[in-house]
């Protein structure tokens, strides 16, 4: 693609970014609004953050969500990475098309269908719904996102590095663990963060698969939001946005570090 921006290009990108970021910025600003009425600016204040600290139901929900997100993201990262290795390195094994179909389908499947299906499964096998069923559901749905993230890295990875190790007598598993894995680790970390955020964010699937005991943060927020705009929701939203921003900055830093340490080993990637 030819370099060189026209005024039209710059405008398109700038407007696009403004459209994406403006609502978030407004939300953050209004979370510091001193007025009880959401629409009227009453000066800077942290009162909604204080109110949030006293909202034990909301904090409980946040804690539940964080634990579910941590567990499901970890499981999804393991499963998603395995699936990527199978797809990229597995050769043309039997049932590969069916397997890849299974791996990519959750990516586009409307959540409402997946949620309903998982709920009916849990009822059919007679498990109590709650913390663990949501964790299982989130693992299933987010693992394909991990696959997509890791896949792009593994595809551009130079196989000859691993082959060199194997030619020198390294067993395949060890060659993968000591050569390939460290190099694709930034992508795996990025996949974990994505899975974590997606789990923390999910309303539909959690609503279907949870039980009375485990209210996640989105379910809690949703029930409040349906009643109208509340300043406290602005506050907790801002905290979540801040958490994600920190996570993304950490991931970018990790990826950069990974790229630097892998500089000598970098293959002549496809796009270069």
């Amino acid at each position: 693609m030819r370099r060189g921006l026209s005024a039209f290009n710059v405008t398109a990108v700038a407007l696009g970014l403004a459209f994406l970021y403006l609502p978030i910025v407004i939300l953050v600003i209004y979370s510091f609004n001193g007025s009880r009425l959401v629409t009227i600016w009453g000066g800077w204040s942290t009162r909604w953050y204080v109110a949030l600290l006293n909202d034990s139901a909301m904090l409980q929900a946040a804690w539940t969500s964080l634990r579910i997100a941590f567990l499901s993201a970890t499981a999804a990262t393991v499963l998603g990475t395995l699936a990527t290795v199978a797809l990229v390195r597995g050769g043309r094994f039997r049932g590969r098309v069916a397997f890849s179909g299974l791996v990519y389908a959750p990516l586009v499947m409307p959540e409402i269908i997946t949620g309903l299906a998982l709920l009916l499964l849990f009822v059919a096998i007679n498990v109590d719904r709650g913390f663990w069923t949501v964790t299982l559901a989130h693992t299933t749905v987010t693992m394909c996102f991990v696959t997509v993230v890791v896949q792009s890295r593994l595809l551009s990875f130079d196989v000859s590095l691993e082959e060199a190790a194997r030619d020198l007598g390294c067993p395949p598993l060890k060659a993968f663990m000591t050569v390939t894995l460290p190099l694709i680790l930034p992508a795996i970390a990025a996949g974990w963060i994505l899975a974590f955020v997606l789990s923390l964010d999910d309303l539909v699937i959690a609503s279907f698969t949870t039980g009375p005991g485990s209210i996640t943060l989105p379910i809690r927020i949703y029930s409040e939001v349906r009643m109208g705009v509340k300043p406290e929701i602005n506050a907790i939203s801002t905290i979540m946005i801040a958490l994600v921003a920190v996570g993304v900055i950490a991931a970018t830093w990790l990826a950069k570090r990974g790229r630097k340490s892998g500089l000598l080993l970098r293959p002549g990637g496809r796009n270069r």
Partner: protein
Amino acid sequence: MTTANKTNEPATRQQRPWGPRLVILIPALWLTALFLGPFLIVLKISLSQTVIAQPPYTPVLDLAAGWQGIRDFVAGLSFGNYVLLASDSLYVTSYLRSLLIAATSTLILLLIGYPIAYGIARAPRRAQPILVAAIVLPFLTAFLIRIYAWVNILQREGLLNDVLLAIGLIREPLVWLSTDTAIYIGIVYSYLPFMVLPLYASLEKMNETLLEAATDLGCPWWKAFWLVTVPLSLPGIVAGALLCFIPIAGEFVIPDLLGGSGATMIGQTLWTEFFSNKDWPVASALAVVLLAVLLAPILIYQHLQIRELDKR
């Protein structure tokens, strides 16, 4: 067969069949049990009579009862729910509305997303990863919260009306919230990264000399764009369109929070059937039909993914 043979071979060879096999088996089994399997249950419940299948519904298939169980299972099947879906205009309208909204918003997304992706692809090489990250970042900040942010902006006393009143474009505050416009704004806002990223990926790979050749030969820029750039970015267009269209058709949160209380999208209809009416069989039948409608786009999307995988 292969496993039995390989076990007799030396130790280094012994790991080969099992290692890769487990790598495939573990995710395959997981997805079969928790993704594919449940759909069969949905199908079964959709064929159950409402009375039997009200929660807690009777076991899907009572294998312990042996043949009797299987016979009962077959006898219990009924297409009543599907007949209901086809005969009640509420459901039919709901499907059509969902598909219409999904198609229209995919088109809007394409029109908005293309110039953005094009702009990023033409930006200096060093700036591109930053711009891509900037597009992805909002996607990572809670979806529910971003929709909620629009409730803030679109409500009657919200910022949009304030701004429009202040600059004198309108005299009276307009109703934005609970309209289809609000649904479109919410959808375009949420799905923009899904459209921009595949478009960018295909535009970025494009060979610049082709465009130069066209313009050197006297082709006007708009014609060169239409005849060279657009066809070459077609894989990105198709991927982006599918990545948006399929989930939008089943969207629940956006129409629920931003849309009105009148006509509903199919996701909302399903949600109501399930959570309010507690009619699990009808909800299942709704899901099965939605899946059937979306099956073709889903298969095309998967085909594209596999082709991408084999391209290297």
